[in-house]
């Protein structure tokens, strides 16, 4: 005559972590598929196959790492693998790599992402850094010269960083860059060589909208990340007096150039939104995204690196615990504090604008970038 005991409430929604991860995986695979199709069509079957091989290598490494981890901790292998969602990390990592990278570099990077980036912290839910970003940083630091004999031309992001210092200042300079990467349409559609999945700006934005509607990612992070980048570069364009391009004023095309290159859309939609490494409170997320945007632009213009986005994510991950403990009160009681923090992030962003605008010289002369003439291994010039 005993009923089951349960703590209230006795009702739970059907929404689950598995559903969230399923939607995220679908979103990532859509972008990946677009990439594979692009490489098959534009560069040939060897390139298309390369993308698939890299993904398979990464996935296998992930599963092996997790299986070993489960074995060591004497847990059920299947449940560890299905509950840690390592494949999401794998897909993101591969999509951040250039097509010319060797599989073994991807394997080592995946090992670092999964084992060092995630498992040593205790597995899914406990990691401090975005694991995929950790893996990508390892490639940057250690495998810059390791490439296959598959060669592409220099990636536009690399060119923008190395040749134009992220600041083509005149119509002619921009035109020479745009000719190189297929014009604005090419930048928007992503039909130019770069990291495997990062270039498809428009598609990633559509997938991001789908993920926001499905409650997979918080709309605040991509909106404020991309919005702040726009504002910072907008101010820079005005301060630098960047010239109009065929009637488009400089304060419009220059921010657009920043948003469409270097994977900021990819980072803002898929990586900065990783809930494990972002703050949990909405106000903290806005602050987090704005600071990441300021760092991205700072690293781009002052560090002259193509991958400002990646490092800004890793740096902001370290601040997540601090942001959370700063915004710990009941939310209605800390509205004022949250607004002050956001205002500070805004001021910081403007400081970046002024600093970059006063110290970086714009490049005015057009450069002769012959698409076919460049057969430099892309991973090398990515760090130029």
């Amino acid at each position, binding site marked *: 005559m005993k009923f089951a005991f349960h703590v209230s*409430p006795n009702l739970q929604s059907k929404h*689950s972590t598995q559903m*969230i991860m399923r939607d995220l995986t679908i979103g990532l695979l859509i972008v990946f598929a677009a990439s594979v199709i692009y490489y098959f069509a534009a560069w040939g079957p060897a390139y298309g196959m390369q993308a698939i091989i890299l993904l398979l290598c990464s996935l296998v490494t992930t599963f092996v790492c997790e299986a070993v981890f489960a074995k060591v901790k004497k847990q059920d292998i299947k449940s560890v693998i299905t509950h840690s969602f390592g494949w999401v990390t794998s897909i993101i990592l591969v999509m951040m790599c250039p097509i010319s990278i060797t599989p073994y570099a991807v394997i080592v990077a995946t090992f670092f992402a999964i084992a060092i980036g995630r498992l040593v912290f205790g597995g899914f839910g406990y990691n401090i850094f975005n694991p995929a970003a950790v893996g990508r940083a390892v490639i940057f630091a250690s495998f810059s010269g390791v490439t296959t004999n598959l060669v592409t031309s220099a990636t536009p992001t690399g060119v923008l960083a190395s040749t134009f210092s992220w600041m083509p200042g005149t119509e002619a300079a921009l035109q020479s860059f745009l000719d190189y990467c297929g014009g604005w349409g090419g930048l928007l559609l992503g039909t130019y060589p770069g990291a495997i999945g990062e270039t498809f700006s428009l598609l990633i934005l559509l997938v991001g909208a789908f993920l926001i509607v499905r409650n997979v990612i918080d709309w605040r992070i991509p909106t404020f990340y991309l919005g702040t980048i726009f504002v910072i570069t907008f101010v820079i364009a005005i301060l630098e007096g960047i010239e109009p391009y065929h009637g488009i004023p400089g304060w419009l095309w220059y921010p657009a150039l920043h948003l469409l290159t270097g994977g900021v859309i990819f980072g803002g939609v898929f990586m900065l939104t990783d809930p494990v490494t972002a703050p949990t409170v909405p106000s903290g*997320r806005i602050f987090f995204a704005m600071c990441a945007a300021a760092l991205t632009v700072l690293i781009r213009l002052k560090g002259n690196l193509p991958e400002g986005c990646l490092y800004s994510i890793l740096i902001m991950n370290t601040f997540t615990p601090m942001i959370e403990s700063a915004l710990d009160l*009941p939310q209605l009681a800390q509205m004022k504090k949250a607004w002050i923090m956001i205002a500070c992030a805004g001021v910081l962003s403007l400081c970046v604008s002024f600093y970059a605008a006063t110290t970086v010289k714009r490049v005015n002369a057009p450069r002769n970038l012959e698409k076919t003439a460049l057969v430099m291994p892309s991973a090398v010039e990515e760090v130029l």
Partner: protein
Amino acid sequence: MSLLLGPMCQHIPGKKGLTDHSDVKRLMPKKEVYIPLFAGNNSQIDLLVSEGDHVKIGTRLANTKSAFPVPLYSSVSGTVKGITKRPHNSLKPQQHLVIEVDEQQEVQQAFLPMDWHKANREEMLEFVKESGIIGQGGAGFPTYVKYQKVENINTLVINAVECEPYITADYKCVMDYPEQFVHGVRILQKLAEVDTVLIGVKKTHPDLINVIRQEIEREHAAGIEVREVPDVYPMGGERTLIRQLLHREYNRLPGECGVIVNNANTAILIANAFELGQAQAKKYVTFSGEGLKYPTNVLVPIGMAVNEIIEQIGGYIEKEETLKLIAGGPMMGKTMVSDLIVIDRAMNAVTVLKNHDEEAMTCMRCGSCTQHCPIGLQPVRIANAVKMNDAAEMEKRGAMQCIECGLCTYVCPSHIQVTENVRKAKRTLMMKAKKK
């Protein structure tokens, strides 16, 4: 959706269709009722009847000695059989007065009716105190206490939202007694000395909205207005309802922002007390959930045992071990291990659900609980403080403000019992406060 805050509420499938179309079943116990001699913790009961006495519906049975005394009245006519200890929905066994039910069911006036058009506020307040009416929203707080100081009150809110899934008792009750309901609202309006009364009803119950509007019009009641509210949980929570209707926030009690909130059912009780001299004897209770063969609303005397009611309405679908019996709705009600509990004065539902649980996973810090908490707390952060056993942080993070609405557990995609973690924090803080 606000920029810095999440939605602070969530639509939950109401499952109201299980019970809101069928007629209310009027049930009587075959043999006995058990009146709980319990009015909150630390209450002493001063019994006015003894074994063998004959009582009628409305006979005063006991007084309580506590901070806010409330008299108890008999819900049936019959013979007092003594006192017994039974399971109670406060989770601890309590003393119950056993009354053997007779055939006649004689009624006596519990007290003299009062003409509320003529009486002054002080007389009316004393009358409500004597009537023993307690809030029907679930917490069971004596109604008169809210009206003791009304200088700063400018709005009365009548809560007919019924946001808990499965429950339709308030809806049924107001649909059956719209006239008494509006009278009760007008009495409360006079007690609160306010011009504005807002009645909150879910927009998914347009029939109820129409019935109340017609009744208000018929009575030419000034200042009383029905407001539609969205079908989200916890819209029936005082804080969320006041936020929705008046855009006001308060710290501890609604009185701080000039508002009194009362349940719709309470208004009907008030009207019956003033106009007929009746104390609360019978109650609308929703018996619903997938664990019952025939979910329905019942009208039963207070003190009728839940097992007897369930037997009379057709029983459970399967054996008890695989079911959860909840005193109240599925969100805020507590599971009872025994169905020997009785219907108490503030209980408006019994929900029986199948006992299957989703497997809990690691928290991925999605912040869903933070975005949905109607108080604006950060349950995930409070749970972290519990993990660290850091009482200072639990307090700083506002654990004591939690109303235990259960929404954080409901929305958690990792199926973690978030509410229970916050409850642990509350228990830790209460223990600490006691030690001091």
